[in-house]
């Protein structure tokens, strides 16, 4: 992981255009991978690069949602504002999922990666990926229905 860190930072900087934000993102990536280190198979370079990309995209999306509304004073009650709020709530729920489920859900839903490719990146089998994806989706559905507080 120490070896690949400079590459991850360079990748994050290309997306975020901000050295500090890139460092923070890579730190989060390292932390996430550390929590699943027992399930990780080496080399984990591809996985680390994919996760970094995912988190950069999430971060950019969050910024877009945060600064997307025009007027700060009046409350926006349009359907679009509701959708934005729902998306924000869903992303909070995704962030609270167990790391493995989170990674797989992000790879599938944010990057649109095929199941067999996710299995390759994570050095596991398709059945395991589907199982984690199923659990993640059901968790998101259940928490979202309850009111979405992670």
């Amino acid at each position, binding site marked *: 992981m120490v070896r690949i860190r400079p590459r991850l930072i360079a990748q994050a900087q*290309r997306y975020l255009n901000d050295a500090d934000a890139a460092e923070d993102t890579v730190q989060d990536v390292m932390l996430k991978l550390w929590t699943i280190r027992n399930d990780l198979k080496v080399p984990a370079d591809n996985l680390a690069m994919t996760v970094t990309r995912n988190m950069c*995209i999430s971060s950019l999306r969050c910024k877009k949602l945060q600064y997307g509304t025009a007027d700060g004073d009046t409350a926006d009650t349009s359907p679009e504002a509701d959708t934005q709020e*729902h998306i924000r709530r869903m*992303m909070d729920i995704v962030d609270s999922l167990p790391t493995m489920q989170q990674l797989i859900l992000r790879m599938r839903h*944010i990057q*649109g990666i095929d199941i067999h490719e996710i299995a390759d990146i994570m050095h596991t089998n398709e059945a395991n990926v*589907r199982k984690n994806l199923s659990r993640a989706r059901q968790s998101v*559905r259940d928490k*979202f*229905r309850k009111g979405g507080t992670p």
Partner: protein
Amino acid sequence: MNKNSGYEHEKTKELIEKFFDGNTSLTEERQLYRYFNGRNVDTGLEQYRDIFVCFGNMAEDCHDTSKQTRTTVIRMLFRTVAAAAAVILTVIGIARLEKDDGKTKLASIYSGSYVIKNGKRIDNLKDIQPIIEQTLDDAEHIERMAGEQNVINTAEQEILDNIHDKYNRERIIQLLNN
């Protein structure tokens, strides 16, 4: 409710179940997102609308980005490989030209040469020319082998030096190091 909408309702319900079992394909997932973003959502399935709109929005922006990135990277990779191939072919072409030129000079350079074979001295240039040429060819081959490896090693650096855009250069470096 007519037969068609009843059928669609059942099909959509099956897809939803498949989705939460983690068994849908990307195409089936896009079908679900399109359905729930439309106006004709069955009242029995209304409870799923918000969640599928959100899932659909997660995917929306990023597929284009990834396609763009992939296309750009593939285009750069082709350019790199083409440039490296051009450099190598040029060097080999120049080496061959020099060898052809050398052949015609052989007689004038090596007149007076001889070969001792089975204890006998052979002066006739016509007879010994093939032996001299073979020896020179062998030496040149060995020298070229050593040179080509150096060309391959420096080709990458030459290409990188000619890319002035910092962003593109970093992408190429990343590709070459992968």
